[in-house]
């Protein structure tokens, strides 16, 4: 199935979910359920597509740029469903689903041909390390978008601007709760990924790399500090800004550190 038909159908379902959530934002009396159902159906189909790719390359499909993007898009979709079921707040859908669409589409458009697999990257521990890292970054991506929404809504409240966006965006308390959930998910799985990565690197390379590990630990520290301060009453704008800083660190790690300081550990 080289055409990734299932993947494209999944993207179509995500687009339909986006259209539906925009409709339900404008017309608040339409039922909420079809949006998550469309996302759920898309996730099931995209999983099958990823499964087919995995079977073809005998590995979790993160070894190609296209595969890793698809996996990232799928993880975003999964995180979105987790947020929706945890917080029952559909108004964020139109702002989060585009990221699912974007990365899932990029995954289908970018090269899917697998390079020669390095023997040292075989095995369950390495697969879990990468998969958890991708899930963690997906959760942090959403915490970043939600933080922007928090700042927008906060500004509207401060300036007493009560237009369409104000009336449609959720309450600050609700957005703050979703930021907390997504950061908690991200912190847990990225933490697990780092631990697995360190054990794996010790076993395979015999040393602890590297600048990228340093960036990951710094990222964990920023998000850990965020949750700690959040529990101690630092709720609000500062938490949102800290979450944005954490995401900037992730981007820094993915670009600058990845390409210039991390030869063995580079994700290309």
């Amino acid at each position, binding site marked *: 199935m080289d055409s990734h038909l299932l993947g494209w159908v999944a993207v179509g379902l995500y687009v339909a979910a986006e259209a539906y959530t925009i409709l339900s934002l404008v*017309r608040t*009396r339409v039922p909420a359920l079809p949006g998550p159902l469309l996302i759920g159906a898309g996730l099931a189909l995209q999983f099958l597509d990823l499964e087919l790719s995995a079977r073809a390359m005998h590995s979790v499909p993160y070894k190609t740029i296209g595969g890793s993007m698809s996996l990232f898009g799928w993880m975003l979709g999964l995180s979105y469903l987790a947020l929706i079921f945890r917080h029952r707040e559909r108004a964020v859908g139109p702002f989060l689903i585009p990221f699912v669409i974007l990365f899932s589409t990029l995954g289908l458009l970018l090269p899917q041909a697998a390079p020669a697999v390095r023997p040292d990257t075989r095995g369950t521990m390495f697969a879990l390390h990468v998969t958890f890292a991708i899930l963690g970054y997906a959760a942090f991506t959403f915490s970043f978008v939600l933080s922007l929404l928090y700042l927008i*809504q906060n500004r509207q*409240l*401060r300036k*007493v601007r*009560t*237009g*369409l966006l*104000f*009336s449609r*965006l*959720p*309450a*600050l*308390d*609700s957005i703050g709760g979703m930021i907390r959930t997504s950061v908690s998910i991200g912190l847990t799985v990225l933490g697990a990924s780092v631990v697995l990565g360190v054990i794996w690197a010790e076993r395979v390379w015999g040393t602890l790399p590297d600048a990228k590990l340093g960036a990951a630990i710094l990222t964990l520290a920023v998000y850990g500090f965020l949750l700690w301060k959040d529990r*101690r*009453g*630092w*709720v*609000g*704008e*500062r938490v949102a800004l800290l979450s944005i800083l954490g995401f900037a660190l992730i981007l820094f790690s993915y670009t600058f550190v990845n390409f210039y300081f991390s030869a063995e550990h580079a994700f290309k």
Partner: protein
Amino acid sequence: MSISQEARLSLLGWSFRGAGVTVREGVAFTADEIREALTRLSKGGVISEGVIVSTCHRSEIYSFAADDSARGALTRFVSEWRGLDQAELEGSCFYRAGEDAVRHLFRVAAGLDSLALGESEVLGQVRQALSLARESGTTRAVMHRLFESAVAAGKRVRSETEIARHPLSIPSIGFELAMKVFGDLSKHRVLVIGAGETGSLFARHAVEAGVREPVIVNRTFSRAEELAASIRGRAAPWDDLVREVPLADVVVSATSSPVHLVTRAIVEAAMRERRGRPMMLLDLAVPRDIAPDVQDVYNVYSYSIDDLEDVAKENQSRRAREVPVAEKIVQEELETYLAWLGNLSVVPTVTQWRRRLEELRDLELERAPASEREKLKGLLDAFAARILFEPLNRLKGEDDPARKLDRVEAVRHLFDLDKEP
């Protein structure tokens, strides 16, 4: 499309647009008075079907009448019953008939004729008016359908436009802002400083918004207790004000104090005690009860009465921008209703009724041997003519226009004449 000529809907009303408050008070009806008025109007032969819509801003009598004479009869009735000057009533009333009356009712239900554009209460009042008329036995199928259609138009306007979405009252705006910070207010605490008119209004609104046990603080403790008792709240002594502030997520202040009651120092101390959790302060007093510089404290959202009034003005404009779309929906619903009503004319109904019987006849004839069909056709036609003779005579000869419409509607329903061919 013109409304059926057999019976014309007529509307006689007094509203804030043409009648002063004295007249409106005189013609305002309670639920019991509406029942009594409808019964008396019906028994006195003034109307055969009728519904009375009575709200703070309007009293309207909808009835079916053969001509415009209903106007005089109804005005006389109201004048005699309520002891009001008939000339004054006639001078301040408005009268609509036929399609204009239907359109007016639909616009009323949609909130397009309200003082507060798009207000929602009127839809419930229209629904209640129908319910009272039904209890009084003064509605049948046509009037019922008219009011059901008006309610449907009202619902559509509210769900498909923004006309009812932006609050206009100051308490609603205050609590909308609070809900955008805290979400569900049932889990949050509200402190109301001042048990005067504005404080009471906000305290009651807080309860409606889901707040449990609002705390009332007032210089005269007995007034705080009185208000707290009426809303299942809690009264706190004036001296406890500073202790109560940190416990509240929303503080509403409406006193006539000449000095600031809630200062920046009090708020900063409260925020330390709250460990930074957000707090909203609504200052409805002039001069201010809450120091303006509290808005610089982290996670404090502070609004003055001017801020809330600005939002009210903006919301009024937002609602006004929705009027063209709302009017279009009203027009669509009006056309649907009038199309249904137009079908209730006697002549087309009788024609369709005959055609339906002919279809049934032909179906039966197909099952008979071909040689006998002609003979059977004559027999069945004669039988159908006999069957129809009396009902058609009664239908055509009905003097009461509303009852005539009602019977035509019954025939259409029983013989399924409205189904698509």
